[in-house]
């Protein structure tokens, strides 16, 4: 191999600007797309909405088969898998030890965390668009086969709530990822912790009422359905503060202080 000399100007280089938030977000998205495992995860999200729509088209009653219902149906699997994407957006950097490079290039770790949140939200929006497309195709099939009412209605409230649901899901995943900085831990605890806490506290009648305000699963579930009532919005706010904002704050602290070996 011949030695290639490397000869850039070493002196008088202009002062470079720091990478903007848009760049960092695109980089975080690219990091999810450019590996085989990331591609599979994203493909899975797409395939799940295809599967959900297919099931929706096949089962259910004739009046159930509308564009809106098919769309809401796709949210169930999406809201389950998006948090995993959120977790992996963070923890892969630790399992693969790329955080060393990431934080050397961008020493302001909260900026990296913010870029990851924005990337997660962008993926949520993309998954929502996929769901909309698949539901539209599904409904077109329903209409063509004359198997449903063929309604194309999609109220803004439902779309807004769906957007909120997927966003909250992915951000909660990112928060858990930052708290644990370990893929299996974060994934297991993400799914198990809210269930266990609800189950345990559910035994006691006295606090069952209170739990409605603190159970993140029961608080977010109505988002994929009818318009939320005032009290349901209250449940969502308090449960999100406990399960999303608090872990996000703790995670940011952990991420900022974590020593990279």
């Amino acid at each position: 191999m011949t030695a290639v000399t490397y000869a850039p100007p070493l002196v008088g280089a202009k002062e470079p600007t720091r990478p903007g938030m848009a760049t960092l977000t695109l980089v975080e998205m690219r990091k999810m797309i450019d590996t085989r495992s990331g591609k599979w995860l994203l493909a899975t999200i797409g395939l799940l909405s295809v599967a959900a729509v297919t099931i929706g088209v096949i089962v259910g009653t004739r009046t159930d088969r509308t564009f809106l219902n098919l769309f809401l149906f796709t949210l169930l699997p999406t809201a389950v898998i998006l948090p995993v994407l959120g977790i992996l957006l963070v923890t892969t950097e630790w399992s693969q030890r790329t955080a060393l490079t990431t934080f050397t290039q961008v020493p302001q770790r909260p900026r990296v965390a913010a870029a990851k949140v924005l990337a997660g939200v962008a993926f949520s929006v993309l998954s929502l668009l996929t769901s909309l497309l698949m539901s539209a195709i599904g409904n077109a099939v329903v209409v063509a086969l004359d198997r449903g009412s063929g309604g194309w209605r999609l109220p803004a409230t439902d779309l807004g709530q769906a957007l909120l649901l997927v966003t909250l899901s992915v951000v909660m995943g990112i928060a858990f990822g930052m708290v644990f900085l370990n893929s299996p831990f974060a994934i297991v605890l993400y799914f198990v912790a809210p269930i266990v806490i609800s189950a345990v506290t559910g035994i006691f009648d006295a606090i069952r009422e209170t739990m409605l305000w603190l159970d993140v699963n029961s608080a977010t579930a109505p988002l994929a359905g009818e318009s939320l009532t005032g009290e349901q919005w209250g449940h969502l706010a308090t449960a999100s503060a406990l399960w999303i904002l608090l872990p996000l704050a703790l995670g940011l602290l952990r991420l900022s202080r974590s020593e990279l070996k």
Partner: protein
Amino acid sequence: MISVEHVTKRYGKHTAVDDVSFHCEPGTVTGFLGPNGAGKSTTLRVVTGLTPATSGRASVNGTDYRKLPNPGRHVGVLLDASAQHGGRTGREVLGLTAQVLGVPRTRVGELLEVVGLNRTAAKRRVGNYSLGMRQRLGLAQALMGDPTVLVLDEPANGLDPEGIYWMRGLLRDFADRGGTVLLSSHLLREIEAIADHLVVIGNGRIAADGAKEELLAGTGVLVRGLDAGLLAGALERTGLPATRHADGSFVVDAEPVAVGRAAAAAGIVLTELRRADGGGLEELFLTLTRGAPADGGDAGVLPPHAPRPTEPAQQTQPTRQDAAEVAR
């Protein structure tokens, strides 16, 4: 330029780095040496803003690393070549870096060529790379932003002799054009071949800091005679302070002419008489870092064939600060 000023890093009660100060000037290659666990990597992490110092400060080109707006454009960092996502291709790793640093995409191809990763290698996933290839990739990543400073932790690890020769040329060239290089290594011969400036750390403290020539300069005169016993007697009678080596030669702290006279007076046939060339980096290293933590670090540092010095080298250079203390 890199400045480390009174940097101390404690983890609970353990002091990993203790009041470390040194400077790396533009145009030089600084070799950063020390046994495993001596605080090398911790110091490099403090310099690159990954670990906050408990006290003291480190700066690169006069600025705290973390305050550099786009650090990759000033400082090329390679702390661990194996810390890469195994599922990414080499080209993609560099593509990501180019995007963060805001340099043109064409740099990726240029640097792949500079570090000698061909098209086939660039398309492969890093998980299939050898350590040597990862070092080349990491170096390409470090050079991506056209930095003026390079901070490299064990960059020669895993490189074959041809690769080591290549890297030596690349770093030498970088420094000759005004760049600053700080590299740690336990490959002493490698450091000896490339560094102009040496910083030796042991037990978290600086054991030596100075120009390589100064630190490695031999002291005294090496003399060897047909009969070692007679020579020893002659040196003793003339009161010349001499140290006998296992091979029968002596290192005498005196001028060659005095040693020659002593031998002539006793009628001894000399087979060798010259200025001692110093024990080299290995001896300096072992002398300065003796008493370092017994965590098996020594074994990793010392090649199996390395001769242990019979005596601690004479500590005459003023630059060998703290040497006696560390060697105690």
